């Protein structure tokens, strides 16, 4: 017997452990992927996931049901990741925006044959600042003004760091594409 989302929400508000586990089981896969994108490795992502779910269970009384429940949980996970980044004293100023234009984008025909895990690994390998802004902008869909507010940085910084992240990823994709082309042919 499947438990509905509404039942899970009400059960978690009442503090019922079995429904808290049901929520975890239902969303832990997607949320762990989110955490992986903001982390360097699996262990760090699991710590994030723990913190995120604890916050979800503590804050679920505030969820009014006006939007997507999954989206609400995802925002909590992202915010948890950002808090951790703040605690780690992430330095957003180490990037020189003047060098951005020297990178060119040669990606013209992106295929979907690249494994998700490989793409995820590319993001994880990014420096923390780039990774954070790329995740927020490209995956979560935030705009630069929102990112600047969330991280306490300027929009210019957000844009420049996104450009740097994009450039690095394109370089990696290009290498992978080269490796894949013989196989495609």
């Amino acid at each position, binding site marked *: 017997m499947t438990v509905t989302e509404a039942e899970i929400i009400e059960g978690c508000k009442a503090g019922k*452990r079995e429904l*808290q*586990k049901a929520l*975890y*089981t239902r969303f*832990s*896969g*997607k949320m*762990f*992927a989110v955490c*992986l*994108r903001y982390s360097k490795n699996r262990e760090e*992502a*699991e710590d994030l*996931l*723990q913190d995120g*779910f*604890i916050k979800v*269970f503590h804050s679920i009384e505030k969820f009014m049901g006006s939007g997507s429940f999954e989206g609400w949980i995802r925002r909590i996970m992202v915010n948890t990741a950002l808090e951790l980044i*703040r*605690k780690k*004293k*992430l*330095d*957003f*100023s180490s990037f020189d925006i003047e060098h951005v234009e020297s990178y060119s*984008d040669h*990606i*013209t025909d*992106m295929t*979907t044959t*690249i494994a*998700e895990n490989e*793409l*995820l690994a590319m*993001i994880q390998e990014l420096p923390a*600042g780039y990774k954070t802004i*790329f995740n927020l*902008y*490209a*995956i979560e*869909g935030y705009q630069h003004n929102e990112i*600047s507010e969330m*991280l*306490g*940085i*300027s929009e210019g*910084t957000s844009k420049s760091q996104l450009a740097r992240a*994009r450039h690095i*990823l*394109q370089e990696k*994709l290009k290498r992978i594409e080269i490796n894949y082309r013989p196989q495609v042919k």
Partner: protein
Amino acid sequence: MIEENKHNNTEKLFHNALANMEVQPSPALWDKVEARLDDENRKRPALWIWLVGSLLFITGAVAIGWYFYPRNQAPREYFVNKNVLLAQENVAITNSNATTLSDSAKMSLQQQVDSINNTEAEQAKPITSQTIVQKSSATTTPNKLSVNNTAHITAVTHNTVATPKDNSTTYTSLKNSPVKKDSATHTTAINKTQTQVTNVASNTTIKPSVTNEPETHKSPGAKNNAGDSINQNNITQSTTTIHKNTSSLLNAVAEKPLNKDSIAGALLAAIQAKKNDSIKQAKETTANKILQQKKTDSLKSDSIQIAKTDSTKKDSAKKITAAKDSSHHLALPSLLSIAIYYSPEIARNDVTSHSTTFNMQNAVPNLRYSFGVKFGLSFGKFELNAGIAYSQLHQTFGLDTISFSKNISQPLIINTSLGNLAVPVGPLMAGISVAPWLVTVHDHYQYNETVNYINMPINARLNFGIGKFIPYVTAGINLQYAISENAVLDVIKDKGVDLNLTYSSLNVNAFNIGFSAGAGIEYNIVKRLSVYVEPNARLNTLPLSGNDKSLNYYFGCQGGIKLGL
């Protein structure tokens, strides 16, 4: 446009691949989450549990105090005057005497009367109660003997003499009976008989139950000293007794021949004996009346004493009224009281250090306040208070200046008692452009921290003096529970965006126990309503948070309104 599409393609590739990606964490992760949930539930019980526990504790303390409170005391008059209290007790005793005389009280009065009688008996014999008692017992014993004697005489003469019907007949018959005139030996016999008659008469007395001597039996010389009413039954009994005695006399005489004179003499002797008895009865009656009179006098004396005590009672009441009036509104502690209070407090500064040049000039003290309600239970001049209160610790540092190098690479860290607040260099420097010749950047920051507590103060209080103003000292403990905490650091830049960081996961000690002491003064506005002000100090056993090493102390001044229940 082409460049933008390339960018979009890259981002689209990652978005499509990763936005809805699922990766399962390790199976043991849920156990860790569950363990943390259990730990946090144990660490901070629900607020309602805390509140209910507090209320139960207060209720239990009040109930125990109520149970052990000495109800025989008169707490409201406790401070008035001990003498007044004693006077009230006397009045109470006098009242009980005046309303009903108990058996023991009556016995006591009787003993007093007897004592008086004994004393008077020594002074004026023979009319004393003691004499009366002695005489009464003396007359009882011969009475029995007289019955025996009468029976004996009757037995001896039973068959020889007819019993006359009445005294007059007997007397007449005796006088008219033939008497031998020449009997010298008879004279001797008559004398002997007369002696016998006298002896019999002296031994044959009227029963002591005859308290009122019948008029018919009084001799001419007998005086009616008592002036008692005549009891017909007693007269009949007495007549019967005399009749029997006379019969015995006649029976005794009948054995020997008698002349008229001897018989008349014998009768006169008998009458004289009776007369003596009458006098004895009169004395007895008089003694009884004296006894009664003395009892009455004693009661009158008691009545006078009661009247005097009534006067004392009135005086005592006047004294109480005067004492109450003189003090106007005394501090008459009610058994139970309730007070609401507000207390501003000051503590030491919470910002302890800084990682860069830091200007503390604008720092203000750590402010705190509490307000609540507390219940009091009086034990004479002692009072036990327990209550529940909300309190808030709040501190603001307003617009201090932060100076740091434009080449700073380490984050700005502000150490507060709630934790270390770190500001990354990136956000700190974002939007700031500094001229090449400047090496130092100036920003401003404002810091606010707030911790909300619920408290349960339990204090003992000792009052000094009475009157409208009551000084007192107090000491006790304070149980404290942090229900929420919050810290906000706002960095205000000369150029660029402001940085507002909120810290909610702070390492505040949730539970704390503090020792408090204070001295205050209470002013009675009207009866049962008073206000008070109480400077006090408190030292918590634990610091404010896990990051704080300094003493957690406060100085405050509590003011409240107290209502006696």
